[in-house]
């Protein structure tokens, strides 16, 4: 089998599963649906491994699958670019997707939409693979919107739940705001490069580095800056960067498996992947890179802070995801693209793990998601407990675990960067370490340690089956759930240690990522690096280690020893507490300004413009005018002989008078 067929199998196998489960779900039944979709994703995973080995052997590919359209000498195609960056993403996507598929068997077992769910997550896998495997902007946009669609369908999976269908509309629209910028960026690329093909565009980029465009009279903008910023607006939508972050926490209304797959491990990292893929463009604009770094830093710190006050187990993890995406974005801004992608990978494993573990807890708690009504679950759910601990430790950057290597390098990169804003970024990511450790272990202690509070919980679960089973002791979930947890715990432990050297300082990414010589961050990082083991040992002498330790310690003290202190603090610093609980009031602002504003404007234009001016004045107005004129003239046509005779006589009289006057 030639490689091109193999490339095709990777996305098409999940698509096949999605179509079969989606259209014929009624006939093939539940088992049929999960067998066909899991088989599809498994085939895709195996094919990805084979492709990965082939790329490691030095074979890359850039070619067309079919011509979508040719117009005016422009070829728009569907095609694949297979290089190290692509294969890494393919492995992450197919592996996490496979785990989530298996997990879903357990998590969704009672759900009437079982087949539909499997169809959606396989469709998602297909879309995400098309996105990462693309060799051109058009297909990138295709995948970009397709993952957005599936995200929309899955957030609103429980479509009778008002909060879910609100959240999915919100997610789609906020993402569309990002896509608005994204498509304009693509438009400028086409207008100035004359092509949407990556290779052509990247090859031409250096020659256009000095190009300026006039967007406003008498102003010259660097073309690369404008393109970079517009494309990044797309990334802000998809990767939920401030100020387009508002949709991600609400997306937790969707079932937990997709929170892990879509809203933590894969789709939300598409923006990060995109910027890394576009490194030949971004390297040409320091303004764009600076902006990216500052946006990332704001997201990393301020979204992390929100995680501290959340009581919904999934929302804590969601804010953590926002914050970690901010870390990746900071790395992009520092020209450390490979580091961003490296964190993307390690994060995919430990965050998927944390979400799936949270789902396991949610099942045991009969769909009560409030961590205030948990506690002491360690002894009832040993596998969930130990894997959660692994995930949390990886997340906060415990030396030798996967998250440590990626996060530590990001902090170092921010420190080494010289772009404007890097000082702020460094401070933010450093402070973020403490915040991350604090909210992660606040949740961990509240869920797994301390007093058992689950019998106090009242039945305010989100899902319809929340009523049964209260009062019984929680127990460990079945193997289809714990299996994926264990399978994800392994890479969360070890993947960083194993891959940091080739991915960041070796030849792995090679030509897939381009860094200009003006941005020496990666080079300097390389000089500081003396192997993963030394890096782990060295950590105890750095700030992040002690900040993380302080975060864990404080969380333990607050939530195990003195739970009265956080409550007292919340009362004491009311404003600060309300600021965090209300998420800085962004939702209120946006819904007032945009949702309500658009409706007010629309009503004004409709009532005032269409009905008032156009129909009222012009259309019906001219009809009325015609009517008035004809009413006047109608008076003259009365049909009475004496009226006409009178008019005639008056006329004759006037004529005769005029004649006489003229004669005299």
């Amino acid at each position, binding site marked *: 089998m030639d490689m091109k067929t193999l490339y095709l199998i990777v996305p098409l196998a999940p698509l096949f599963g999605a179509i079969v489960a989606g259209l014929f779900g009624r006939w093939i039944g539940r088992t049929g649906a999960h067998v066909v979709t899991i088989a599809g994703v498994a085939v895709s995973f195996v094919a990805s491994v084979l492709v990965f080995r082939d790329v490691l052997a030095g074979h890359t590919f850039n070619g067309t699958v*079919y*011509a*979508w*359209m*040719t*117009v*005016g*000498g*422009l070829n728009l195609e569907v095609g694949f670019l297979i290089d190290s960056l692509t294969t890494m993403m393919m492995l992450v996507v197919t592996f996490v997707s496979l785990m989530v598929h298996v997990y879903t068997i357990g998590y969704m077992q009672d759900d009437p939409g079982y087949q539909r769910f499997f169809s959606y997550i396989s469709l998602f896998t297909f879309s995400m693979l098309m996105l990462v495997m693309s060799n051109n902007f*058009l297909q990138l*946009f*295709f995948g970009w*919107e*397709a993952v957005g*669609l599936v995200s*929309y*369908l899955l957030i*609103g999976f429980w*479509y*009778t739940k*008002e909060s879910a*269908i609100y959240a999915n*509309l919100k997610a*789609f*629209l906020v993402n*569309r*705001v990002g*896509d*608005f910028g994204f*498509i*304009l960026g*693509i*438009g*400028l690329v*086409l*207008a100035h490069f004359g092509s949407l093909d990556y290779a052509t565009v990247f090859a031409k980029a250096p020659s256009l580095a000095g190009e300026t*465009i006039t*967007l406003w009279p008498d102003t010259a903008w660097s073309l690369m800056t404008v393109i970079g910023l517009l494309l990044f607006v797309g990334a802000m939508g998809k990767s939920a960067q401030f100020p387009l972050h508002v949709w991600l926490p609400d997306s937790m209304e969707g079932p937990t498996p997709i929170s892990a797959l879509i809203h933590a491990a894969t789709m939300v990292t598409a923006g990060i992947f995109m910027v890394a893929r576009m490194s030949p463009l971004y390297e040409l604009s320091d303004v764009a890179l600076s902006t990216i770094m500052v946006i990332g830093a704001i997201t990393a710190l301020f979204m992390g802070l929100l995680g501290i006050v959340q009581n919904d187990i999934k929302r804590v993890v969601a804010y953590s995801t926002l914050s970690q995406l901010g870390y990746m974005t900071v790395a992009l801004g520092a020209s450390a693209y490979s580091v961003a992608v490296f964190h993307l990978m390690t994060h995919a494993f430990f965050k998927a793990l944390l979400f799936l573990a949270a789902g396991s807890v949610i099942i045991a708690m009969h769909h009560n998601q409030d961590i205030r009504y948990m506690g002491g679950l360690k002894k009832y759910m040993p596998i969930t407990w130990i894997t959660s601990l692994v995930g949390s430790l990886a997340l906060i950057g415990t030396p030798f675990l996967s998250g440590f290597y990626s996060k530590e390098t990001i902090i170092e990169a921010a420190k080494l960067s010289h772009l404007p804003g890097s000082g702020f970024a460094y401070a933010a990511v450093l402070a973020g370490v403490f915040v991350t450790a604090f909210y992660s272990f606040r949740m961990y202690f509240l869920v797994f340690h301390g007093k058992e509070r689950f019998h106090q919980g009242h039945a305010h679960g989100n899902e319809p089956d929340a009523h049964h089973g209260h009062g019984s002791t929680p127990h460990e979930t079945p193997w289809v759930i714990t299996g994926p947890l264990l399978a994800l715990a392994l890479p969360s432990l070890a993947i960083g240690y194993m891959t940091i050297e080739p991915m960041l300082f070796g030849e792995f990414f090679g030509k897939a990522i381009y860094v200009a010589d003006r941005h020496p961050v990666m080079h300097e990082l390389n000089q500081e690096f003396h192997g993963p083991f030394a890096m782990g040992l060295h950590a105890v002498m750095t700030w992040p280690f002690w900040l993380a330790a302080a975060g864990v310690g404080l969380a333990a003290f607050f939530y195990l020893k003195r739970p009265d202190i956080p409550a007292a603090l919340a009362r004491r610093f009311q404003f600060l507490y309300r600021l965090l609980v209300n998420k800085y009031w962004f939702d209120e602002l946006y819904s007032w300004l945009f949702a309500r504003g*658009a*409706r007010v*404007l*629309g*009503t004004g*234009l*409709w009532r005032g*413009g*269409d009905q008032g001016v*156009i*129909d009222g004045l*012009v*259309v019906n107005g001219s009809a009325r005018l015609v009517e008035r004129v004809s009413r006047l003239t109608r008076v003259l046509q009365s049909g009475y002989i004496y009226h006409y005779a009178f008019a005639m006589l008056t006329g004759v009289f006037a004529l005769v008078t005029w004649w006489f006057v003229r004669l005299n």
Partner: protein
Amino acid sequence: MFGQEILSLVIWVPIVAGIAVLATGSDRNAPLARMLALVGALLGFIVAIPLATGFDTATAAMQFVEKKSWIPAFNVHYHLGVDGISMPLILLNSFTTLLVVIAGWQVIQDKVAQYMAAFLVMSGLINGAFAALDGILFYVFFEGMLIPLYLIVGVWGGPNRVYAAFKFFLYTLLGSLLMLVSLLYLYYQSGGSFDIQTWHRTTLGMTAQTFIFLSFLLAFGVKVPMWPVHTWLPDAHVEAPTGGSVVLAAITLKVGAYGFLRFMLPIVPDAAHELAWLVITLSLVAIAYIGLVALVQADMKKLIAYSSIAHMGFVTLGFFMFNPLGWEGGLVQMISHGFVSAALFLCIGVMYDRLHSRQIKDYGGLANRMPVFAALFMLFAMANAGLPATSGFVGEFMIIMAAAKVNFWFAFVAATSLITGAAYTLWMYKRVVFGPVGNPQVEAMKDLTAREFLLLGVLALAVLGMGLYPKPFTDVMHASVVELLAHVAQSKLP
């Protein structure tokens, strides 16, 4: 057998079939009328197929040409022919006629023969307008198609149908009378010819060009419809029966846009370049303004009607970018809008037939009772919002790309439709389809019948097919578009 007269067949088969249907008389013979109408529509579609299969994509010249003298005294000819611009529209029209005949199968129980006949006759007349190469012949078809449509709205429409029908009729008549004056002027200027291709070569001074431009703009702009002469459309849609809305949205609007390419741009290219700013401004207003107006509609048909205006704004915007991406994008958008708007009006029809309301607030939670319908409706809603892999994306994408080439801010305003289009379509979808079952009537609603499933399923395939592989559509257009663009680029000033 009729090798040389395919276009005549495409025009006259539906009209003759329509007259035959009319001959069945009163509603006692309704089953016969339906059957005859179906056969007629099917035949009308079948005779159009050779246009596609026998079409030579390599040439920009007119194909399947027929030319016979009609009124020798005024040099008027029965002159027909198609190129890559008109051929797809004829197929779209013949296809849509088949859909509306099937759609009206059970719904229409009153004056069945007359209803079906009106659609068949209209189909033939519209094909005539797309195929005519003689100015007077075009004018006859162009005006003639108004009559059946006027009757469809006025006879089978809703409570306010008379107002809507009058508004529609007067609006469109106003524009076309001015156009007639222009056609007569062109007759004299061209030395006594009504041949459209001769007019393309007739030199004209700037003043004359400007007046002709404005008369065409009014005549075709009303049909498109462009802002601010659009207010007849929402009223006409709301009052029209489902089939009327489908034809109105899918086909009639396209006749206006077609007029831009066949008449205005090639006949008065200098004025068109000079006054491009006007059309571009109106198109952008249509996209941005109408998008917001659509958002606040409480009536689903009105919402989709407004959405049509915004989508047609893309077409006119694309045409005045004067580049291949813009023109082909506009043409693709016309065909795609034909599929998507037809499908959406059929969807609303499906709901209306069950609940007899078009108000969004009367629905809610349809997904619980009609899952198959909900899935198809979702596909069409997404196509309306311009999601990639649906046909709705292709044209919009091409036009935004074309606009970005000309001026960043044109693209900027046009791209706002990404947000507004998604907002009004999906917000409506959410309130109608998602949520708990809204009321007892919704509870009683049944999922699609086989007939409805067939209609929407065929359209779903068309929407997806065109979204995934638009190349066959644009390949047909290339030669004609390239030639016409080159023609429009040359000055015709004396």
